[in-house]
Every structure is written in C-alpha cells, then in structure tokens.
C-alpha cells in the first residue's frame, strides 16, 4: 500500500520516463482496465490547468460517475483518456498499455477499445441508423475497405442484433436525423458497442434528454456495461442520476478530484464540497 502510494505520487509529478513493468504492476494491478496517474492538462490558451493531479483506476464492469460544477474539468478528463485532448503530463494505461506519448497509429489502435458517447449524439444525420452504427467498425478495417465502406457480413449481423436488443430494430433504415433524441442517443451507444469496447466514456449522455428518456439511456448504459464487463466513466450534471446508476463517484472541482468513493457513501456534505455550494442551491433536474 505504501509502495503504491509512493509510486503514485511519483507518477503524479508527471514523470516523463516510461514506467518499468515491475513498477507498473505495483501502481496498476492488472484487473484495472483503466489507470490514470498524475494526469494534468493545461490548454494552450489557458493559464490554469483544466485538470491536475488526477489519479484513479477503474476495474472491469465498474460504473463510475464523474460529477462537478461546470468547468470542473470533467470533459477534459474523459477526452484525455482517448487522447482527443493531448495530456500535458501523467500516465494513462488502457489494459496495461500506455496511451500517453505513443504515436498516432498506436493511439488509433488503442481507441478501438474505447467507446465514446456524446451529449449531442454526433451522428451523421443524413445517414441511416445502420450506416451510423457501422462506423463503430471502421477502426478495425483496412484503410481501403474503410474508405469504400465495405463492412463484413458478420459485422452487419452483429449490428442488427444489438440494434434489435436496444429496441431500434424497426429503425434500421431510417435516417438518423428523423429519430427522437432518446433514439439518437441509443444509436450513439450502439455505435460505441460495435467497437467491442473495454472502456466506455460518456460525456453528459443525458444532458439533452427529458427525464423519462434519460432514464432509458442510463439503464441501457448500465446494463450493457454490466453484461459485457465494460468499465464506464460517465460525466453527469445531475447528482441524482449519478446516485441512481453508478457504483462509484468521482467528484471534481477546479480540475482536482475532491471525492472518490462508493456512490453509497456520498453524503450531502460531500456533494456540497464538490459543487462548492449548498445542496438546495444546486440546479438539479429531477430524474
């Protein structure tokens, strides 16, 4: 335990050298699919870091809610994990493999195992549900097959199956922009699942949905993560949703983790500390 703490502290100083395998095993036991150590991100245009000194790990099938006020660094944290944002310092290991500081081709390879769900769904509106969902396979295909969109029959069958399971079976050939918000987000989740991810990153997946639809989406995400043992990090504005659907909560404020523990242990005082204001002043949408 002490060794782990020392090593973690070293990592958090933003060591630029690569960890040796022995060190890595102390700091990051293998059952942890995701390991973040001493992560720091300072945007070029900003003076203060958006994320600093963030260290945590996530195990298979664990559902982690990331909460915090606007600007706390939740999105930045998620985006560092699949390197949509380039971390300034620290380590991120996916299944024991370093994703920071590796070349672009290697990043692409690692990203295949990291699904992402967006607040605004980020579907191609003019394409069908099926076509959007198939995009999740592009990372596994050769450039030529990808450019031509030659998806394998096996992948297509898989897509139909998952779509039917998520009650989208009758919309396979509907244009994505003709769907309701809740349906769009389900397509977004299925696209991520097509990657056969071991990690799922959800950035405010229900922020644009009404409570009833939000509930459906959160249940879908929770169910698939439990079923497939996917480690899930989900940014949420609503504390209630986090309390209801997650196993564990990471509370952020000013780029730092101020709470990290089981959801059941999250007290009102902790929530107030995370948000920096009393509970009854929090703008909370019911769920």
């Amino acid at each position: 335990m002490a060794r782990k703490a020392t090593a973690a502290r070293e990592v958090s100083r933003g060591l630029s050298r690569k960890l040796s395998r022995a060190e890595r095993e102390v700091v990051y036991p293998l059952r942890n699919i995701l390991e973040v150590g001493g992560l720091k991100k300072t945007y070029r245009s900003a003076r203060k870091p958006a994320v600093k000194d963030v260290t945590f790990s996530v195990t298979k099938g664990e559902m982690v809610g990331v909460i915090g006020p606007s600007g706390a660094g939740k999105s930045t944290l998620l985006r560092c994990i699949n390197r949509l944002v380039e971390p300034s310092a620290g380590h991120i290991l996916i299944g024991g493999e370093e994703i920071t500081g590796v070349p672009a081709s290697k990043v692409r390879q690692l990203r295949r195992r990291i699904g992402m769900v967006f607040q605004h769904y980020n579907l191609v509106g003019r394409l069908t549900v099926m076509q959007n969902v198939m995009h999740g396979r592009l990372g596994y295909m050769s450039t030529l097959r990808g450019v031509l969109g030659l998806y394998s029959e096996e992948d297509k069958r898989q897509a139909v199956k998952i779509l039917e399971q998520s009650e989208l079976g009758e919309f396979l050939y509907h244009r994505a922009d003709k769907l309701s918000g809740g349906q769009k987000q389900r397509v977004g989740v299925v696209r991520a699942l097509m990657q056969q991810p071991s990690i799922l990153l959800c950035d405010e997946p229900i922020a644009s949905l009404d409570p009833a639809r939000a509930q459906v989406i959160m249940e879908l995400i929770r169910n698939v993560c439990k079923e497939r043992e996917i480690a899930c990090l989900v940014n949420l504005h609503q504390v209630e949703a986090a309390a209801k659907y997650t196993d564990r909560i990471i509370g952020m404020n000013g780029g730092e983790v101020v709470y990290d523990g089981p959801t059941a242990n999250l007290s009102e005082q902790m929530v107030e500390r995370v948000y920096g204001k009393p509970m009854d002043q929090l703008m909370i949408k019911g769920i």
Partner: protein
Amino acid sequence: MESRRAARTFLYVLFALFVISTAFTKFNPIDALLAQGEFWNFIFTDFIPPRIQRLGALFTAVKQTLYMAIGATGVSAVLSLILGFLGTPAICRFRLVGALVRGFASLLRNIPVLVWAFILVAAFGIGTAVGVVSLVISTVGELTRYFIETLDEIAGENIEALEATGAGMLPVITQAIVPAAMPSFIAWFLYCLELNIRASTILGMVGAGGIGLLMTGYIKQYNYGAASTAIIAVAAIIIGANLLTDYLRRVIL
C-alpha cells in the same frame, strides 16, 4: 440614440461620396434623363426587330457558351474538392498547407473573371479554351472557399465521433464527412454553375469565344438586328439556367 447618430453620419458620408464621385466622373443625372430619348430611339429603331441570320452560327455559339460554363464548373468542382479538404484545418493538420491553399484560393477569387480572361486572351489568343481556363481559375477560388466553410462547419462533431472509434482520416472523410456535406456541396456547385453561365456569355466579349464573341462581332459591324437576336439568346440561356438549377435544387436537396 447611438445607432441613430451612426445612421445619420452614414447618410452624410454617402451623400458626400456621391457628390465627389459624380464630380469626378462628370456624370450628370439630369443630362442622363434628358438623353433618354436618344437612347430609346437607338434601341427601338436599330435593335428592333431582331434579325435572324446565320442561325447555325448562333446555335454553335450558344452551345460553346454552355459547354464552356458546364465544363469549367465541373473541372473546378473536382479541383476545389481536393483543395477544400486540404484547406480545412480540422481535416488537414498541416497548418502550412491549409494556409497556402486558403491564400491561393483568395488570390484567384479576388481577381475578377473578366480580368483573367483578358490576361489569358492577351497571352494565348482568342478561343473557348481560354474562356474555360479563366472560368476555372475564378471558380476554383470561389468554390474552394465555400467548400472549406462547409467542411469547417460539419467537420468538428463528425470527425471527433469517428476519430474516437479509432478510424483513420480517409475513411472518416468518405464515410461521414462527404455524406454530411453533400447537400451543401451540390448547392454551391449549382450556384457556381449559374454564375458561370452568366459569366461565360460576357466572357466572349473579351475574346473568349461563344455567344458573347458573336454578339460583339455583330455590334462592331453595326449589325444591330443580329446583335439583338444574340442578346435574346443570352437572356434565354440565363433564364433557362436559372430554371434548371432551381429545378435541380428542388429535386436533389
């Protein structure tokens, strides 16, 4: 209060500019009104009725004009597509390339097509090829800019979602960006086609072939009746082009 003062200042400035420019050009609105009689006289006695002569030459010229516009717009679309992708920072991450493309496009665009035609005719002589090249030059300038604007708008979200899956940039372009951008691409293409059909009728006047060349020829020979037939043909081409592009817009978009 602020805005009203600004509006008044603007009107004063406009009036002052009007006075100054009329003084410089010695353009006198009253003279222009008085000279109307002469002008209409010229139009009615010399241009009307239109004389139909050498119909074959007329049709050839109309065809040349249309080919010039359609060919030039097609070639420009292909070139602009390539330049558009290279010039969009979210797609092509070599900043220098992007800056060069955008600078190049704005250089082409900011020199009017007539000037290009004039230069090229001076260099290579009269001909439709020169017309096509000058249309291509200015259309590439225009279209590249519109394509970059379109791509910039849709690129962010779509690229991000697909890059996050581990897909490379080329599949992202063909599988997401192109389908998303297609309606705008077509709309801009049709817009440029329309502009080019107008432009190609005028281009003839500086020697780039087609109906414009025929028309200026007739005018120079004081054959106003025939010139007026050519003018009617020009109007017909432009109206036809408008109807066609409107129709295509309705069908495709």
